[in-house]
C-alpha cells in the first residue's frame, strides 16, 4: 500500500479542516476504503479518522419528536438490531441486516455505507483506467464486457450500480441526511443525496469536498405505514445484491395513500420508480396491482450485453417487497 498520513481530529471542525487537501479521505469502519487503497484504486494521501471525533451527534440512535436520528458512526449491526428501527423502519433494519457478513456489519458504519465507492470490477482493478477514475472509457458498457452486475437503469456515461443497502432503504423511508462542511451544516433529502454519473462522474453523492455526513433522520411514519427491503444475491452472505427493492407504503381505508418504490443494485443511484408508485396510489394491494407495480418499475430499463436478466428479476423483487408489506 502507498504511504499516507493519518490524522485523528478531536472535533468535526478539525475533521473538516483536515479534509481540505486532495486525496484526503475520512475513514470510519474502513471496510470499503482500506481494500480500495490496498488494490491501488483509491489514491489516499491522508486518512482522517472520524472515530476520534468526540461529537455525540455522530453516535447512537435517538428517538425525537420528528422521528429517529441515527449517528453516522452507528454500525450496521446496531441499526439492524435496534428495536425502534425494527418496529418502525423495517426496510432499514432488513437492509442493514443483510450487508456483507456479520464481521462487515459489526465494523461498517452508516456514514461509510452511504459514501462507499462502487464495486464495478473495472473500477476495482488498477489495470482499468475507467471514467470513474478519471480515465477515458467506460469498460462496462462495451458489448464485450462482463457487465452482468452493472446498471440497467440510469446509466451513462458510467454504468455502476449503487452498492449501498442503507441508501435504498433511506430513500424509501424519505430520510434526511445531515451534513457538515467548510460552509457549515446542511440537510439533504435522501432521494437527492445520490448523484447520477451524468451529474457527477467521479463520485456518487452530492457531497462537496470536505463535507461529512453527521447523522440521518427518519421521519415518524404516518399511521398505517409499513416498509420492507428485499434483495437477491448469488450467495447467502459475503456477497453483493444482484437486485433488490425497498418499498414503503401507507395504507388508509384499505387503499394505498402514499408509496415509495426504490430499486436496488440496478442503477447508479437508489432508483426511485415514480411509475410504480403511481400504479399503487389509490389502489388496494391486490396481486394484480402488485404485478402491475413490478412491471411499471422497470419501464425504461436498458440492459447492457449481459444483464438483461435483471429486468425480470427486479420485477420479482418489487413484487416480493410489496407482498411483504401487505
Amino acid at each position, binding site marked *: *500500500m*502507498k*504511504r499516507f498520513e493519518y490524522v485523528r481530529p478531536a472535533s468535526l471542525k478539525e475533521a473538516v479542516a483536515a479534509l481540505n487537501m486532495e486525496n484526503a479521505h475520512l475513514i470510519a469502519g474502513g471496510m470499503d476504503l482500506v481494500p480500495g487503497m490496498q*488494490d491501488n484504486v483509491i489514491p489516499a494521501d491522508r486518512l482522517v479518522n472520524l472515530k476520534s471525533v468526540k461529537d455525540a451527534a455522530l453516535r447512537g440512535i435517538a428517538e425525537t419528536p420528528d422521528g429517529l436520528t441515527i449517528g453516522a458512526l452507528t454500525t450496521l449491526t446496531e441499526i439492524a438490531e435496534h428495536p425502534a428501527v425494527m418496529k418502525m423502519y423495517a426496510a432499514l433494519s432488513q437492509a442493514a441486516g443483510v450487508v456483507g*457478513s456479520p464481521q462487515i456489519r459489526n465494523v461498517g458504519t452508516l456514514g461509510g455505507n452511504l459514501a462507499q465507492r462502487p*464495486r464495478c*470490477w*473495472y473500477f476495482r*482493478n488498477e*489495470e*482499468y483506467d475507467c471514467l470513474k477514475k478519471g480515465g477515458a472509457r467506460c*469498460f462496462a458498457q*462495451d458489448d*464485450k*464486457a*462482463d457487465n*452482468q452486475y452493472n446498471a440497467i437503469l440510469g446509466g451513462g456515461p458510467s454504468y455502476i450500480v449503487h452498492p449501498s443497502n442503507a441508501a435504498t432503504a433511506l430513500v424509501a423511508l424519505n430520510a434526511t441526511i445531515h451534513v457538515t462542511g467548510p460552509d457549515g451544516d446542511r440537510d439533504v433529502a435522501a432521494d437527492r443525496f445520490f448523484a447520477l454519473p451524468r451529474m457527477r462522474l467521479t463520485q456518487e453523492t452530492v457531497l462537496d469536498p470536505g463535507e461529512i455526513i453527521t447523522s440521518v433522520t427518519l421521519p415518524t411514519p404516518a399511521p398505517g405505514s409499513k416498509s420492507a427491503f428485499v434483495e*437477491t444475491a*448469488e*450467495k*447467502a*452472505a*459475503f*456477497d453483493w445484491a*444482484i*437486485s433488490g427493492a425497498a418499498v414503503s407504503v401507507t395504507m388508509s381505508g384499505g387503499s394505498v395513500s402514499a408509496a415509495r418504490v426504490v430499486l436496488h443494485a440496478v442503477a447508479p443511484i437508489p432508483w426511485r420508480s415514480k411509475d410504480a408508485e403511481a400504479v399503487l396510489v389509490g389502489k388496494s394491494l391486490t396481486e394484480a396491482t402488485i404485478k402491475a407495480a413490478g412491471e411499471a418499475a422497470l419501464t425504461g430499463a436498458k440492459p447492457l450485453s*449481459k*444483464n438483461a*436478466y435483471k429486468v*425480470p*428479476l427486479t420485477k*420479482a*423483487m418489487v413484487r*416480493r417487497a410489496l407482498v411483504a408489506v401487505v
Partner: protein
Amino acid sequence: MAIPWKPASQMTHITKNTTRLDGVVKVTGKAKYAYDMLPDKCLIGRFVTCPHPNARRLSIDTSAAKALPGVKAVWVEGRDIYRFSGDFVAAVAAISDDVADDAVTLIADSITWETLPFVVREDDARQPGAPGAHGGDRSNVREATNENEGDVDAAFADAQAVIEGTWSTQVQTHTSLEPHGMVCEWNDAQDAITVWASTQGVFSVREGIAQAVGLDESKVTVLCDYMGGGFGSKFGSRTEGNVCALLAKDAKQAVKLLLTRKQEQTNTGNRPSSNQWIKAAAKDGKLTAFQTNAFGTGGITGGAGFPTPYLYSVPNRRVKRDDVFINAGNQAAMRAPGHPQGSFAMEGVMDELAYKLGADRIEFRINNDPNATRRAQFRDLAERLDWKNVPKEMNADKGTVKRGWGVGAATWGGGGGGTQAEMDIHQDGSVVVRCGTQDIGTGTRTVVAVVAAEQLSLPIDAIQVNIGNTNFPPSGGSGGSTTCASVAPAIKVTADNALFALFERVADAFDTSPDNLEAFNGSIRTKDDPSNSMSWKDACALLGAEQVSVRGQHEGGLSSSGTAAVCGVELTVDTETGFVRVERAYLIQEAGLIINMLTVESQIIGAVIQGISYALYEDRIMDRMLGHQVNPNMEFYKVLGAPDMPHIEPIMWMTEESLARGVIGIGEPPVVPVAGAVANAVRHACGARVYDLPITPWKVLAALEGANA
C-alpha cells in the same frame, strides 16, 4: 508381504473416531504456518508482475531499486517474453513491506514493454485469424485426443433415444487460504538453507531449492508443520520458492516471500475449462453410442484433459478433444484433475437419456455402471434419498420455489507406496515417530498416531508424531490421494518392527521368546499366559538409556487402489430469482480400511463443499478487452461460505470386503460427482437445464425462459 492388518473388529483406534492431534493449536492460532514464520532479521520479498497479457520486455533497470536504502536483493527473470497478465518479472527483498513495495514500483516503472496481440478466451482463441497466444504462427489449438471405438453411426441409427447438447465448465482456481510461498533462512556459516514451505511435498521442494541455489540436497532442510490448502497446486519449489531462496542466498539473510491474493488467482494454477459437445444414445436401457467434440484451456501452455464418457460403459465411442491456448496462467493439478469436468457432462447425459427413455435415473446408471461397488452404492443412495417418493418427472412442484434431486458418481485410483518411517521407544515408555510426510490438512499427523497407537496397543496421546521435515525418513508428495495409503502402512510396519525389537530386548524378563510376546491394552504379556504381564512402562524401563530405534517402510498388501463414490443432492430453485439452495448432500465413499473416521469424513465434507462451490459460484473471468482477470480476489471470485452449506452426510462404505482391501486414499474422488448431481437436481426441480458452470441465477433464469419459450 507385510503382516496383515488385524481384523477391524479387533481394532481399538483404527476405523474409530480420533480428533485431530493439532485441532486445538490450529483453532487457537498456536500452530505456525509458513505464512506465520518470521525469523530474526527476516526480509520481505515481493514480486514485480507483468501488466500486460502478452508482451515483450524491451528493457528493465533495477539500479534505482537497488540503490533504495533497505533493499537487500533483487532478482530479474531472464526471459523477455511474458504471456499472461500477472506473470513474474522481477522480485525484491527489503527490510520492510513498505520498502519492498517502493522497490517494486521503481522496477515496474523502469520497464519498457512492447505489447503484443492477445487472446484470453478459448472461444476467441479458436477463431480463424485469432491472435496467437504464443505470438507468431503457432496455433492456439492442439489436438489432444482422437479416439474411435466400435461403430458410432450404426449405433445412433439403431438407438431408442438420442440426446445432444453442449456442456461447459469454467476455469476454477485452487484458492488455497494460505498463499503459495516460503520463508527461506540462509545460514552463511554453513552455506546451508532452511525453508519453511507451504507445500504438498517437502522432498520435492528440497530437490527444487537445491537446484535453484546450487546446493547439495544435504544442505537444504525443508519444514512444513502445518499448511493451509494446496488442492494440487503446491508441489515442488515452484518459481516463488526458487526466487525466495535465491534472494535469501543473495542477501545472506532470511527472506519471506508469500504471494498476494491476486497472484494466487493469476499465477498458481487452476482447473482447466471444458466445452463438450456431446451426442449420446441408448437402447434397451443400455448406453450404445457416445460422440464428443470437445476443447478446454489449461492456459498458456497447459493441457486441459478430462475423461469422457467417464465411468459408464459405452461400446461405440468417437472422442475428439483439443487443447486451446490462451494468454492466462497455466493449469495445475487440482483435486481429481479432469474428473469433475468429465463427470459434470456425463451425468447430464445420463439424466437426459433416462428422461428420454422414460427410465428411472438411478436404475439407468446401475444398468450402465461396470463397477459392482458403485452399483451397490447407488442402491444405498436410493434408500437414503427416499428415491421411491422422489417424483419421476421434472418440474413437479407447482410453486415458484421448486425442489429437485440429482445424483452423480466418481471413480478414482489412490493407493500407496514408498514411505519410510522411524520409531523410537524409550525407557520411560515414550514413543516417538518420525516420518517426512506432510499434513496438508487431511489429518496425516493424526493418522500416524492412530496407526502407531493401534499397533503398540497404547492410547493415542502416548505417541509423539514428528512429520513435515526432510531430515526425517522420506515420503512422497501428497497428491493423487496417496498419502494415507502410503503413510499408514509404513507406520504399521515400523511400529511392528519396533515392537518386535522391544520384545527382543525384554523377553528374558518374561522368561520367554520374543515371538511369544504381545502388546495388549497398555501392557506387554505372553501370548500363551496372559497373566505373565507387565505394564508398558515397566517393560520399557528394562531398556535402559539406549532406546529401541527402528525403521520400517510401506509394504504391499496393506493398501490398495481403485475406489468408488456416489453422490445425491436435494435442492430448491427459486424460479423468479434463479437462486439455487442446496439443502442436503449425501456422499457415499469407499475408502478401504478407514484409519480415522473423523478425518475421512472431514475430507468428504470438504470435497462436497468445494464441489458445490464449483457448481454454483466459482469462475475465473478473463476480460476480453484488456486481457486481465477481472475477479482476482475472493470478493468476485466467489467461494461458497458457511450459510451456503447444505446439511452434508458423509457415508463410508464399510463392507467387510472393502475394509479388507487395506488403505485407499480418498482426498479427491468425493469432489467429482457433486457438480453433475447439482446440475441434474436443478434440471429435475424446474425442468430447465443449465449446461454451463457455474449455475448462476442469470443462467437459471435464461434456461427457464428457454424452457418456457
